[in-house]
């Protein structure tokens, strides 16, 4: 009788059933889309973080440069009057100089921190790296000895010269380029955590334990292509020419750059940068997600000057369209979902109460002939719950189609991470740590607007592009059904309690 009565009532009130179910369906679909997109954005953020910090990194330890201290970045290029080689006509001198140092805004700290971190409870792996920036200057400048007024000799990096004559253009101008790339010194033996966990060898080989003191380098494949370098060539890092033994690509996706342009053994990087016993980053893996915060706290206590970041802290540092999407989903999406859900619930309650009011005589009659209160309430609640379920099923279909459309649209989100880590490519490093790669790339280095710096375009490629994939998990479907059922039950309880309060005599009298 329950099922028969319920089915007949819902069929009899098709329009009301359709409106309530449609309202709930829209709300459920919206919740599904927001949940799925939020999960997709979270996955994308994780992808970005993994591509930068490596798989399995739960905590990172860095140290931010003190204001006013030597916070890295390229220094001045100073040339003596007799430096370089004079051109055949004597008007210009060919000059080149290379510098290797900490990236701007970063600071190095004692590598003993690695042992300190490794000794903290629940830490399963730890690896230290030294992130550097190589900046090289090469080009032709007017020969100062040819200048009519020595006081007018161009200074390095201005990109222009006021000499009346001389220079490559014969009018006192200059032609030079500033090339920069990031260099990360890694421990070749520590492969469980750190930036090399998200790279795959594209050509040649990766760094091996035996390379700890070897003058070798592994290049990011994209950088290698831009710099026209291949396995067997040499790359100049600081004052040393290192043999390129391999190229690597990111395992995060095709076309995604790795976190550095050049990877060298840690000891080699320390020696070349004159930073023996110094590191810039420590990557930490923790045995359980529940212990991450405890480990972070313990490391902060052990290393009071360090900046300790967990994955959730780092997620906040992801910038770019990914950050915008995340913010949009979290704030607008959630608010919209709540509003629409409340509206749908309200609609369901309103229609149910209105239905109960219209059926006062009917429900009063059932009470008069002996239907217990719980049976009457159950009937109303059952009808509402089924309406909710119908809305839930329709919402899942609607939401599924919307999510499918989003996935088929192949929305690409661009994300990069800051927070004191530098991972920009060529041209990066103009701005202090904490800015995104594009901004870093856009910032010109010394030399102003003169030569072919090739900064912004290359740096933009360092931002990780991730195609948004919004997953529909069983949890999302269960939550959708649960919400729909909840909506139906809320309406049923409100409507049912109204029906329960009806005294049969009043119910019959009101319409008699």
């Amino acid at each position: 009788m329950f099922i028969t009565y319920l089915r007949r009532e819902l069929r009899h009130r098709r329009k009301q059933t359709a409106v309530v179910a449609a309202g709930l369906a829209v709300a459920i679909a919206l919740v599904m889309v927001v949940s799925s997109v939020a999960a997709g954005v979270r996955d994308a953020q994780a992808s970005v973080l993994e591509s930068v910090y490596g798989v399995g990194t739960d905590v990172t330890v860095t140290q931010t440069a003190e204001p006013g201290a030597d916070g890295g970045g390229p220094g001045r290029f100073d040339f003596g009057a007799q430096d370089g080689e004079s051109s055949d006509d004597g008007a210009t001198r060919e000059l080149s100089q290379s510098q290797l140092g900490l990236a701007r805004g970063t600071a190095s700290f004692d590598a003993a921190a690695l042992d300190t971190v490794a000794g903290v409870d629940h830490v399963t792996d730890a690896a230290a790296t030294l992130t550097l920036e190589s900046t090289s200057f090469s080009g032709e400048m007017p020969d100062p000895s040819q200048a009519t007024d020595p006081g007018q000799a161009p200074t390095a990096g201005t990109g222009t010269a006021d000499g009346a004559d001389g220079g490559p253009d014969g009018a006192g101008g200059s032609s030079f380029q500033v090339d920069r790339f990031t260099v990360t010194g890694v421990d070749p033996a520590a492969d469980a955590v750190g930036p090399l966990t998200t790279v795959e060898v594209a050509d040649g080989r990766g760094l091996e334990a035996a390379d700890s003191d070897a003058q070798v380098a592994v290049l990011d494949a994209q950088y290698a292509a831009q710099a026209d370098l291949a396995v067997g060539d040499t790359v100049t890092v600081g004052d040393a020419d290192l043999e390129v033994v391999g190229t690597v690509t990111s395992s995060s996706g095709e076309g995604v750059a790795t976190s550095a342009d050049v990877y060298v053994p840690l000891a080699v990087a320390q020696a070349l940068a004159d930073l023996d016993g110094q590191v810039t980053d420590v990557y930490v893996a923790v045995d359980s997600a529940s212990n991450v915060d405890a480990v972070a706290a313990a490391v902060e206590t052990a290393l009071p000057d360090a900046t300790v970041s967990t994955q959730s802290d780092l997620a906040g540092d992801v910038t770019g369209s990914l950050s915008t999407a995340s913010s949009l989903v979290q704030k607008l999406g959630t608010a919209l979902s709540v509003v629409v859900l409340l509206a749908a619930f309200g609609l369901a309650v309103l229609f149910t109460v209105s239905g109960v009011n219209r059926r006062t005589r009917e429900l009063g009659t059932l009470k008069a002939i002996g239907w217990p209160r719980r049976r009457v309430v159950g009937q109303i609640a059952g009808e509402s719950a089924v309406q909710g379920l119908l809305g839930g099923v329709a919402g899942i279909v609607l939401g599924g189609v919307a999510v499918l459309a989003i996935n088929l649209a192949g929305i690409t989100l661009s994300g990069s991470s800051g927070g004191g880590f530098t991972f920009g490519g060529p041209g990066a490093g103009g701005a202090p740590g904490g800015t995104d790669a594009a901004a870093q790339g856009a910032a010109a280095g010394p030399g102003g607007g003169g030569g072919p710096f090739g900064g912004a375009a290359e740096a933009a490629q360092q931002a990780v592009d991730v195609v948004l994939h919004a997953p529909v998990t069983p949890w999302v479907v269960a939550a959708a059904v649960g919400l729909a059922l909840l909506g139906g039950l809320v309406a049923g309880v409100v409507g049912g309690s109204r029906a329960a309060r009806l005294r049969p005599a009043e119910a019959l009298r009101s319409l008699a």
Partner: protein
Amino acid sequence: MYQIEGLTKTYTQGKRTVHALQDVDLTIADGELVAIQGPTGGGKSTLLQMLGGLDRPTSGRVRLAGDDLAAMDDARLTRARADRIGFVFQHFNLIPTLTAQENVETALVPAGTPADERARRAQAALAQVGLAERAGHLPGELSGGQQQRVAIARALVKEPAVLLADEPTGNLDEATRDDIVGLLEGLWTQRGLTVVMVTHDSVVARRAQRRLRIAGGRVSEV
């Protein structure tokens, strides 16, 4: 069947207090067919609601086969209505979305009667009121007289001790009225039911075994 003592019912309508029943004492014997007449607002329907446990008196007792309906809690009162009292209403009060048979079956739901037995008994009850062939029709597909027959079948399918009818012919034409009254008389005779019937219609009332008049909340024999 009923022993009523000092039955009083007052309620408020706005600022006005209405004395629907005032200190009513009444006894209705088993198997009696009683008609209650009186002016509109005289308390007829209120008395019927008290007899049926649809409402609670302000004071006094309504004993049904010795059990005081006024003293019962809601659950027991509901049980009493489900098992012992059948109702027939002026407006039939059928569930519009259920067929005639399903409407009759609703009276057996509170007792937890199995579905097949419910169907069998409902069909038998409909046959008894002459509507066996209309069992699958919705109320909207039946005439007023047929709807009231369905309502009577619903009231009797659970085999109650008492049948309370509130203006059972109030919405029917004369010919149909006579049919329905004849049906009620026949069932009363066959089953030995106690029937209490509120009516405006003197023709109907005259066919009762006993006639009561209620006016101003007070009951008197006619």
